[in-house]
Every structure is written in C-alpha cells, then in structure tokens.
C-alpha cells in the first residue's frame, strides 16, 4: 500500500520532470515517420544516380518535395530528441550539455539546409 495521495503522485511530473511529454512526442513522430520513410526511400532511391536535370525536376515537383520536407522536419526533431536521450544516458556534466547542444543544432542545420535545397529546386 502506498501512502501517497493522488495529488502527490501527479505533482512534479515524476522523475522525468516533464511527465510523458517526450515519450508522447516520440510516439507521434514515429507514426508519422513510419509512413514517410518507405515513400521517401523509393523517391530518393529512384533519383539517386540520375542526371542533374532529372534530380532537380524530381525534387522540384510537389509530392517528392513535400515528402522530403516533412521527412527532414519530423525526422530531424525525432533524431535530436532520441540522440539527447542517448547522450543523457552515457554522459554527464559539461560533456552532456555540449553534446546535447551539438546534436540539437546539427539537427536544425541539416533540416534547414535540406529545406533550402528543396525551395531552390521547386521555385
């Protein structure tokens, strides 16, 4: 028997201090990526090895461009959050902070670069 009131158990969002927010965000993005990844693998695989004009035309057309843009934004957020958990498991202190900042910034840079490339090919 636990001598905790229901209110006490709910306060502070547990040991994570953010409740299930992280887990739920990963769940949502994983479901999205389950649909995006197979489609994008086909688009990218077909485009890889093609001449320059074919590649530009492919990623400049609506469907491949939208799938790639979604994959970059959803995928890079999913990566940054997952990599953060890995870093938090294996490192601590200043190393942990530096690595978490590093992967978060890397994820945004990769997403922004890809979106810029798509915009340039589509417009």
């Amino acid at each position: 028997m636990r001598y905790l009131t229901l209110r006490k158990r709910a306060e502070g969002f547990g040991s994570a201090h953010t409740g299930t927010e992280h887990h739920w965000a990963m769940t949502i993005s994983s479901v999205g990526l389950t649909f995006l990844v197979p489609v994008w693998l086909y688009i990218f695989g077909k485009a890889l090895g093609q001449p320059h004009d074919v590649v530009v035309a492919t990623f400049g057309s609506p469907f491949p461009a939208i799938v790639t843009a979604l994959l970059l934004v959803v995928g890079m957020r999913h990566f940054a959050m997952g990599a953060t958990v890995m870093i938090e498991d294996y490192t601590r202190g200043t190393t942990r902070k530096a690595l978490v900042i590093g992967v978060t910034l890397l994820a945004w840079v990769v997403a922004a670069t890809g979106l810029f490339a798509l915009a340039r090919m589509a417009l």
Partner: protein
Amino acid sequence: MAEPKRVDRPISPFMIGPYYRPQLTSITSILTRITGNALIVGVVLAVWWLLAAATSAEYFAVADAVATSWFGDLVFAGSALAVWYHLLAGLRHLYWDSGRGLHIETAEKLGWACLIGSVVLTVITILLVQ
C-alpha cells in the same frame, strides 16, 4: 549541515559484460539506438547531395560522384538496413506500448522479426530502386 557525500556512481553501460549476459531482447534493443543515431551519416550525405543539386551542375557533379561511389553505396545501403531495422523496432515499441507482446517468447519472436525483416526489406528496397 554536514558535507554532502559525493557518490561516484558508475555510468551506463557498465552492466554489459561483467554483470549482464547479452541476450536477443537486449541486443535488439541496443541496436534500435545504434541504428537510429547512425542514420545521421546517411541523412547528412543525402542532404549535401540535395544542396549540391540545388546549387549548380558543377557542384552536383562533385556530390554525385561521392554519393554514387563505393563509399556512397556503402553509406546508403547501410542506412537502408539501419532505417528498416529502426522502423520495425519502433513498431515493436508501439505494440509494446499498447500493453501487448511483452511475454519473453513473444518479445524474442518480435526481435527475430526485426532482424530478419530489416534484411528482407533492405534487399527489396535495393532491388526496387536500382
């Protein structure tokens, strides 16, 4: 107040090896993390290739030469295997989150499904897009 006692706790994964015998369920779990994080290599190469395509024909020639070289083939084939494994293992987590599939025999079957399924799907992907 007395000096707080600093406990130098070991850091993960200190258990593996001396205290913990690797088994299918734990190996397939750690593979989820390894594949997910390793995918950044393939993504960076793909995005660089896209940026080059958007920039100029000359720049594309450089990036395309790398992306279609033996090195590019290795990275993208490895990434295909990694992403399929990570996707199947992620589906396994969604199934577990629903409260199902947590018996050891079922969990081990799901582990084999991830390992074999990822290889099969990678072969299908490569055959489909080459």
